[in-house]
């Protein structure tokens, strides 16, 4: 059971809410902040920056009608797979070395909101693939302005556990936190894909945390598409033990005047671990794409391999890109590569396609497909098709 914030923490938490709203207002063209402020006002709550929050009891607030109508603590809907879903059970995963989000106001806020943690255990025997689908958030949440959910996934056995998280985002602020543990020799595949039919619904602010631990010989694959939000912040952190591997492939697709910020860290705690982080995204005019990839190879983690790659595609003139590939290597005998580039389509490539009779628009579409080709290699056929339809919508 999550600890509900103490009374004296309420001020701090709502200051964080104020921070969220203030930060979002920098890029918010879709009036999310107005919606949040309206909701606060409708429920006789002070505005985010008001000093009156000093006098608001957090526990009282959580039990008030305002929260039950305004905040949805989402329950995931799970389809398929032999799984155990157990709310209020916390998976004890030692991720202390990497879970340094204690200073992240959004994370604290999310933790304070979430009262029920859903534990999903998947055990796949050798040569078996277990497919699991999580629909999030549930439809009853549609009127809530703030939606929060915390899910812990534990994969064991020597087979493959495949978890597909289908996001149906509506307007408001979403907090979504995952913790995963991959047992020895187990494989877990996680994919985060937005539903395509929500293309017109870009009025949300979205926060995601995925903190993972991969034990000896285990492997974790994370595939994510980030889009349809005014403002996004996503943090992916993985701790790797001996001979463990993680393959993170992320596609932030940032629409006009929207913002997406990604942090992907791998911590190589023991030898022969492999970490691959590929980020390929695009930003339309006025869009902002931030990607920080950090990998640390600890003293005992010799013979480890790291590959970092961040690439951005400017589909129109004014997309902004802020990339930081970062390595911290504390031992010898490791293989590390990192790269970061951004820009529009190569002029020579576009000219070549035009000279072969392909019109400008179609040529650009082909080059966009080509740009995402390498990152999509790790996606399933169904996921690839979904990405293509999202790209078409954008």
């Amino acid at each position, binding site marked *: 059971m999550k600890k509900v914030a103490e009374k004296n923490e309420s001020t701090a938490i709502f200051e964080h809410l104020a921070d969220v709203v203030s930060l979002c207002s920098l890029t918010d063209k879709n009036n999310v902040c107005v919606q949040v402020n309206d909701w606060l006002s409708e429920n006789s709550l002070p505005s985010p920056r008001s000093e009156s929050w000093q006098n608001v009891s957090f526990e009282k607030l959580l039990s008030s009608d305002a929260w039950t109508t305004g905040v949805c603590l989402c329950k995931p809907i799970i389809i398929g797979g032999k799984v155990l879903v157990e709310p209020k059970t916390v998976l004890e995963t030692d991720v202390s070395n990497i879970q340094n989000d204690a200073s992240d106001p959004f994370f604290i806020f999310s933790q304070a909101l979430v009262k029920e943690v859903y534990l999903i255990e998947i055990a796949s025997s050798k040569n078996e693939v277990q497919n699991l689908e999580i629909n999030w958030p549930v439809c009853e949440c549609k009127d809530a302005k703030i939606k929060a959910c915390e899910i812990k996934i534990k994969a064991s056995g020597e087979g493959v556990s495949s978890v597909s998280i289908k996001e149906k985002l509506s307007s408001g602020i979403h907090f979504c936190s995952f913790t995963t543990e991959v047992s020895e020799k187990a494989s877990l595949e996680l994919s985060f894909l937005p539903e395509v039919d929500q293309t017109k619904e870009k009025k949300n602010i979205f926060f995601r945390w995925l903190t993972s631990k991969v034990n000896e010989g285990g492997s974790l694959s994370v595939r994510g598409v980030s889009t349809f939000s005014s403002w996004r912040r996503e943090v992916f952190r993985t701790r790797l033990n001996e001979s463990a591997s993680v393959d993170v492939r992320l596609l932030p697709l940032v629409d006009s005047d929207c913002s997406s910020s990604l942090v992907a860290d791998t911590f190589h705690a023991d030898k022969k671990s492999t970490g691959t982080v590929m980020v390929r995204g695009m930003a339309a005019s006025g869009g902002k794409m931030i990607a920080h990839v950090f990998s640390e190879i600890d003293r005992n983690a010799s013979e480890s391999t790291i590959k970092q790659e961040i690439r951005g595609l400017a589909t129109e003139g004014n997309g902004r890109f802020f990339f930081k590939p970062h390595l911290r290597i504390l031992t010898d005998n490791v293989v590390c590569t990192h790269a970061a580039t951004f820009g529009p389509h*190569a002029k*020579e*490539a576009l*000219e*070549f*396609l*035009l*000279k*072969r*009779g*392909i*019109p*400008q628009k*179609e*040529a650009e579409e*082909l*080059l966009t*497909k*080509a*740009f*995402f*080709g*390498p990152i999509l290699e790790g996606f399933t056929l169904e996921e690839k098709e979904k990405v293509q339809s999202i790209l078409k919508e954008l």
Partner: protein
Amino acid sequence: MLKVNNLCVQAGDHPILQGVSFEILPGELIVLTGENGSGKSTLCSVLSGGGELSVTADEMTFQNKDLQNMLSNERALQGLFVSSQEPVVIAGLSWRVFLQAALQERQKSLGEEPLEVSEINTKLEKLIELVRMPSETLDRGINEGHSGGEKKRMEMLQWLLFAPKLSVLDELDAGLDQTAKKQLAELIGKAKNSERSILVVSHDAAWADSLQADQKWTMQGGKLKKQA
């Protein structure tokens, strides 16, 4: 087929082509040679369109249509093919996807129904064998990991696939081995007919001689000289 009158090309203040005039008639095979930097590739580039050079001409028509008012893709769809001297690499875009798209654009411009994918694939399989490349190449990125000679073989494939009315083969022989060069010469001989013209640009005088061209031109200091 192609008529060019007083073509001048400049890069900034530097003149590259100076008053170039010529005509290519239907069914003609012409060989153009010249030293490095004489302007041969600039001429090819101007014909295909695009680029950032300053181009002026009293006349530049292809099949009686003003070439200067046509975009690069429109020129290609009208039947003008200019091979790339330095083929571009496009990682992630497979030959098959690109060639299918290019063929379907041709169908569209002719007002015809799209081709069946199986029909296109059969064509591609035949041609890839003809240019002596492994069929798996079709599913690799454009020129990704290709050697210089392999890139030129894939240029050959495109040329054969599109069957253009006017082919401008800019040093298509460069980088090919002797067998492939001989094969290219044979294919050029076969491709030339009363409706199709070919302009071959080459540095290899002996190979160019073997083509039995109708005319031989040389480019020198941006000026075109026609040999008797």
